[in-house]
């Protein structure tokens, strides 16, 4: 009889151990990766300089007016800016024009000091090779590029009244 109880006790102990051993845990580690490519993009794809941005309307001969536009370039790589125009880049109203010139300042390594005439000739704003290097710094990510425009009315006649328009494209490449 004693042996029977010993066996039963042993069985009970085994059962208790089985119950104890039933709890457990199993970990799984998940490694995750995501990739950011090098890129540069304008915060605003199609910004505009409108009439109200100018220092004033042209109201006389040989009068100079200016306007500026602060552009934001998001870049995680050294980028180069190249100005172009789908037209001439000269402020135009029908057959009338205003003498137009540009400057680029801001976060570029060599900002313009003087206005450069719209045109593709040597020393002009749209000349081949007239590019601007963004002052890239790792971790920066955001750069301000200022486009300044100057319009001058003729000095020997009054230009036609009206709105004068043109366009400039600044292409960031890397």
């Amino acid at each position: 009889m004693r042996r029977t109880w010993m066996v039963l006790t042993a069985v009970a102990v085994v059962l208790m151990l089985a119950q104890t051993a039933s709890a457990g845990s199993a970990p799984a580690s998940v490694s995750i990766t995501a990739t950011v490519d090098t890129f540069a993009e304008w915060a605003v794809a199609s910004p505009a300089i409108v009439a109200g941005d100018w220092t004033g309307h042209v109201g006389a001969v040989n009068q100079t007016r200016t306007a500026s536009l602060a552009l934001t370039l998001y870049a995680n790589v050294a980028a180069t800016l190249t100005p172009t125009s789908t037209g001439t880049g000269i402020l135009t109203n029908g057959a009338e024009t205003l003498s137009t010139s540009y400057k680029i300042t801001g976060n570029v390594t060599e900002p313009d000091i003087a206005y450069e005439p719209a045109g593709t000739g040597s020393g002009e704003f749209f000349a081949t090779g007239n590019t601007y290097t963004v002052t890239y710094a790792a971790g920066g990510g955001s750069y301000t590029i200022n486009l300044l425009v100057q319009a001058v009315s003729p000095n020997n006649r009054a230009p036609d009244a009206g709105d004068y328009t043109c366009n400039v494209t600044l292409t960031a490449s890397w």
Partner: protein
Amino acid sequence: MRHDIARIAVVVAGLICAAGGLALGGANWSGQPYTLAVPDHITGAGQAPIGSLEMTLDHDTPCTITVSVAKAGDEVLTSAGDTLVTRYKLTGAALLNGDEVWVDSSKFLTGNYSVQGADPKIKIWVEAAAGSGRATNAGTYSASVILTASW
């Protein structure tokens, strides 16, 4: 007679143990190591590509899944000091309280998911979002989380 009783007791105990073993089984992640690579690269500010990974939790008992990290911050996609906004979801037919919406990485670490159904497929989702006000540094961003099944 006493020997017979002892033998019967042992057999009964064995059966109970066997039954108990089934009822009190366990869980195991199969197919490790798990790696999740977000397939689409970030090529502009504010982009938030998504990736997912289906894992297999073999289990024959209800269990819970908790989330942890080996060291603080591991849950956030990081590359050389720059980070992506990282959000998670855990889904699966067997989960009683799977995520229906994205969970912030810090909150994800407090997750406690109840596994009740038999389906072994558990899917982890991750959203990697670049900041909208600047270009995040280029590179490969890494994170890691630990999913522990307990029963």
